[in-house]
């Protein structure tokens, strides 16, 4: 059903060509929103939608964009999409939108978007661009979820706001690792995820 190239555009970014781990794009928000699982999920979904849609829009008009001002055109398209998503979040998920604060607006300058628009959507057809956008967005969301899962579980003993570590553990001397909630641990965790990802991929070769 899907051609090989289309499949590759979708599956590549999920593992071998992951935007966060391999291309090192979109780090800023990946680190900042991962204290809890819920904002991380919302952020991952928002970015996936925006990358996919902006890829489609730019791919549709790619032949009529003058080369010299393409960056500004891309920024305007992305900024318009981000504004829509931000307004929708404020209307339907106000508390999460407040938690994400400036990081929703910062999706505009998220390098994943500019990177994919420049590297893929400007030169490929609409269907491949859509798949590439979805793949990259989900690859990004995946890392967010992994990091947020570890931080919320170890940092506050909860997942999605529900207590998962039972009370008797606390009674027997277990305590939450407060350091996991600090910004610094996000960096160290992503470093460890990169470490694991590289050593696994090396073994495959």
């Amino acid at each position: 059903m899907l051609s090989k190239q289309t499949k590759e555009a979708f599956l590549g970014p999920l593992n071998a060509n992951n935007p966060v781990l391999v291309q090192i794009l979109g780090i800023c928000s990946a680190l900042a929103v991962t204290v809890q699982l819920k904002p991380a999920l919302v952020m991952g979904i928002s970015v996936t939608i925006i990358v996919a849609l902006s890829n489609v829009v730019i791919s549709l008009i790619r032949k009529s964009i003058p080369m010299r001002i393409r960056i500004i055109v891309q920024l305007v398209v992305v900024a318009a999409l981000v504004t829509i998503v931000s307004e929708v979040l404020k209307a339907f998920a106000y508390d999460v939108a407040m938690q994400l604060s400036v990081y929703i607006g910062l999706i505009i300058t998220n390098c994943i978007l500019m990177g994919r628009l420049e590297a893929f959507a400007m030169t490929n057809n609409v269907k491949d661009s859509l798949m590439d956008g979805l793949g990259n967005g989900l690859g990004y969301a995946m890392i967010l979820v992994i990091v947020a899962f570890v931080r919320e579980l170890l940092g506050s003993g909860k997942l999605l706001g529900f207590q998962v570590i039972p009370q008797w553990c606390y009674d027997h001397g277990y305590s939450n690792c407060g350091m996991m909630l600090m910004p610094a641990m996000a960096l160290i965790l992503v470093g460890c995820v990169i470490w694991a990802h590289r050593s696994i991929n090396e073994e495959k070769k």
Partner: protein
Amino acid sequence: MEHALSLFVRSIFADNMIFAFFLGMCSYLAVSKDVKTAAGLGVAVIFVQTITLPINYLLQVHVLAPLGLGYLSFILFIAVIAAIVQLVEMIVEKVSPSLYNSLGIFLPLIAVNCAIMGGSLFMQQRVLLDPENVKAIANLGDAFAFAVGSGLGWMLAIVCLAGIREKMEYNDVPKPLQGIGITFITVGLMALAFMCFSGLNI
């Protein structure tokens, strides 16, 4: 005046763009291989931040807020930033070709540096704060102090990391961790160190 000074010092250390908010991380990680280019990019960030943030402040206070057009702020801010970057690039090229040659490649990159956009978005939130709050931006002077401070903090962070990475060339790092992996962990440890500034008050 005292308030602006406090804001300035806080935005360098306690509210450091890199270590507290992870803004401008992409270019931070990519351009921190040697101290000289890192310093060049740092100067460019301070420069653009100091120009764009007060302009966006004026736009926010005198245009967007009175007209109730808050939802247009993303598009407007990014347009201002992109236009200023373009303008600065042209002016620097005309006035000082030597500076242009050393900054040249970094200037266009700054348009999509989250630290610049993030600075403007933080400003937008802080304008609404109570003027007594240490984080509040109440007038143009405060906006300047915040802009210069956050730019300086960013430069401090990138020069420090570049220094450490130059030294780390000679260390025996496990192979899968080499390059970007160990850089992340280094930044994490630096962020821990910077956290001791978080209670800073003047």
